């Protein structure tokens, strides 16, 4: 019986490349990983957005209407709905002049209870410290 923590660190901007999208879809895949593991074993994902990657977390993304692809917003909300831990780097949010109102902080509209947190980089670093493996996207 073991739990391994994986940190998914998103530093890329959305859409121009697939990187941030693959971070979200792989983190969400932690929900079905048990079929490959022994009873009681678990993978615990943590999602953290840092650097320009925090721009993935803006509300009101309309990629589905305009381009027919799931928005990063939708994937972040799905992650919250599944109770994944989602952190957004405070220093980067401030540096880029983003107001908290503009950020995806919850998934209440789809019935989610878990909230994202705007966390100082030191806390994200602590999560990396206590993770078993780090995946930078």
């Amino acid at each position, binding site marked *: 019986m073991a739990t391994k923590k994986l940190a998914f660190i998103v530093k890329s901007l959305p*859409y121009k490349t697939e990187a941030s999208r693959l971070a979200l879809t792989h983190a969400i895949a932690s929900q079905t990983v048990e079929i490959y593991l022994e009873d009681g074993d678990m993978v615990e994902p943590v999602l953290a957005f840092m650097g320009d990657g925090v*721009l993935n977390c*803006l509300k*009101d*993304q309309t990629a589905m209407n*305009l*381009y027919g692809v799931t928005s990063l917003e939708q994937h972040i909300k799905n992650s919250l709905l599944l109770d994944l831990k989602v952190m957004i780097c405070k220093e980067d949010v401030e540096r880029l*002049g983003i107001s908290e109102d503009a950020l995806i902080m919850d998934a209440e509209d789809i019935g989610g209870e878990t909230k994202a947190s705007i966390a100082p980089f030191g806390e994200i670093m602590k999560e990396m410290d206590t993770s078993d493996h780090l995946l930078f996207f």
Partner: protein
Amino acid sequence: MTLGVLVSDFRNMDNILSRLKADKLGVILVSNGVYHAAVKEGGKKSSILEKSPHLYVLSEDLHSRGFAESEIDTRVKSITYSDLVDLIFNEYEKIIWI
């Protein structure tokens, strides 16, 4: 010559854009270039906006990323794909994507 530059990213654009010389230089923000119109890093507007009096942003790419026209610099004109076609054929002899 007249030159339309499609700026497609948020980083490392300034170095190239600053060096280009044209009788008329247009800057069209597309893809992740749209952040130049909407994000003020460290409280400052993007230096890309100083490079030309002819500034455009593709509305589809602006909206997909979560921004509205009300959030962008007033010097930047929001355009559609159809407008972009007219810019390409009517306003600029050469077009580049950086």
